[in-house]
């Protein structure tokens, strides 16, 4: 039932053998909202510099799981977690862990784009400023680089001081990605980043994910089966708070081991 990946292994992908290093390792993770258990004994390894998609029906715990990786669930009263999550071998729930540093390493993009009601520039500068970058020239360079990497620079370079709220939905979401990239994270968590966007804006986000995969470890929650197939290297299928199966995306979509996975992927339910 629980399938964990070997610590490191090779596989044929695009006919090139790839060596994978584990970035995040989750062991026997249980998660509770008050008395309600939301995640049951999750074991999964997220490989470095790959895109891992989390799929499953609504309420299956995939977003909850995603938010355990940067401890965003901490801000909800009455949540509790058992088991361990390590990033590069360090337990992020060990007491004394600096959550601020963790969230700097593990960036997040939300389902609904949530730019600050400030200028485009100030949105991207928010994180770097928090972490002590004051120098104007350094900030400007960092912001340009972040916007370039998020594929937004050409569209906004002439209006950096205009309100971020004047951007279209797709642009706002790419701005949120730029904002996350500006603090130079190692891991990027994306919670259905394209679910509120039209097909064209969605395609741009997906292209962006493909471009970012070389530099970042990406974990993306998606409702959209085709999207998972298009953008991810690995896929994990959640149902009712349990991890049913996780494997190389191609294998998951062509030859899943579990009947439940096959049913979900082929659209028989969910």
């Amino acid at each position, binding site marked *: 039932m629980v399938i964990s990946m070997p610590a490191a292994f090779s596989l044929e992908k695009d006919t090139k053998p790839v060596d994978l290093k584990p970035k995040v390792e989750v062991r026997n993770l249980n998660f509770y909202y008050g008395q309600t258990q939301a995640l049951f004994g999750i074991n999964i390894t997220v490989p470095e510099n790959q895109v891992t998609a989390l799929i499953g029906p609504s309420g299956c715990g995939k977003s909850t799981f995603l938010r355990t990786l940067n401890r965003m669930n901490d*801000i909800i009263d009455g949540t509790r977690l058992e088991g361990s999550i390590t990033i590069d071998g360090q337990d992020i729930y060990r007491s004394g862990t600096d959550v601020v540093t963790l969230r700097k390493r593990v960036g997040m993009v939300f389902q609904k784009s*949530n730019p*600050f009601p400030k200028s485009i520039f100030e949105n991207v500068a928010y994180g770097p400023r*928090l972490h002590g970058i004051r120098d104007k020239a350094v900030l400007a360079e960092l912001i340009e680089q972040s916007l370039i990497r998020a594929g937004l620079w050409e569209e906004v370079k002439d209006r950096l001081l205009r309100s971020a709220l004047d951007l279209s939905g797709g642009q706002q979401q790419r701005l949120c990605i730029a*904002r*996350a990239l500006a*603090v130079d994270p190692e891991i990027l968590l994306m919670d259905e980043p394209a679910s509120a966007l039209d097909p064209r804006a969605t395609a741009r986000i997906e292209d962006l994910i493909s471009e970012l995969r070389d530099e970042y470890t990406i974990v993306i929650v998606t409702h959209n089966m085709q999207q998972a197939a298009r953008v991810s290297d690995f896929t994990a299928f959640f149902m009712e708070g349990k991890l049913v199966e996780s494997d190389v995306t191609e294998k998951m979509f062509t030859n899943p081991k579990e009947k439940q996975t096959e049913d979900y992927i082929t659209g028989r339910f969910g």
Partner: protein
Amino acid sequence: MGSLSERAAFLGLRIITYFVVLVVGYILFDIIKNGIGVLSWSFLTTYPNPDGTGGIFPAIVGTFYLVLGTILVALPLGMASAVYLTEYAKQGFLNNQIRLAIVTLAGVPSIVFGLFGLGLFVLFLNFGTSILAGSLTLACMILPTIIVSSEEALRAVPQTLREASLALGATKWETIRKSVLPYAIPGMMTGSILGVGRAAGETAPILLTVAAFFLPQLPGSVFDQVMALPYHLYVLAMQFPNAETVRPTQYGTALVLLLLVLGLNIGAIVLRAHFRKRNRW
């Protein structure tokens, strides 16, 4: 159109509404009609005479000081409490009890605050009848209003902004300071101005803690007594009930007080409209 009984009910409600508007309208009309002639530069800037005639300058200054003192005390205290209650305190039994206490406090009659102020500030803390005691008493009275409206303003800031900030590695305090307060402060101010407007017009809390019956001089320190507009009006009505000579001063004072409170409320509404347009998320 609905049934007959429904139409009758609507008609009844409409008549009641018109009646309320009519009463308020009549009071306004009466005060403006009789007060407007009294308003003059000298009425606003000269001292009163012992017989109740003359200007109301010390009362205007006194009310100004009281309002200022009240703002200085109540605003930081109320805002800080609201930030603590909404952003930091664990939501639960204790928090609910505190909220209940605050709401109850908002409903306490103002004379009770006056007596409380007399007991605590004037006598126990020995501030005497003074601006300090009066401001503190008024601050206690409007604190619930400020806390409740500030909490509403804080809750109106979308949770997604807090999450965005926290996810970038901001601490809770950095998040509140940079991504919550800037968007909540206009709403906090609006509610606070309405509270201050109420403080400016109250008589009972200042009756026992600060107000001077007749004091044709300006205060020298926060430990001095002052005259105040609502109390002045009260004195004019009580001490000279039949003196036709005082009638114009009464109307004039009432009009000035009305304009002051109206001005504050309009200011609050304009502020709210302005920031509603700016804060769209």
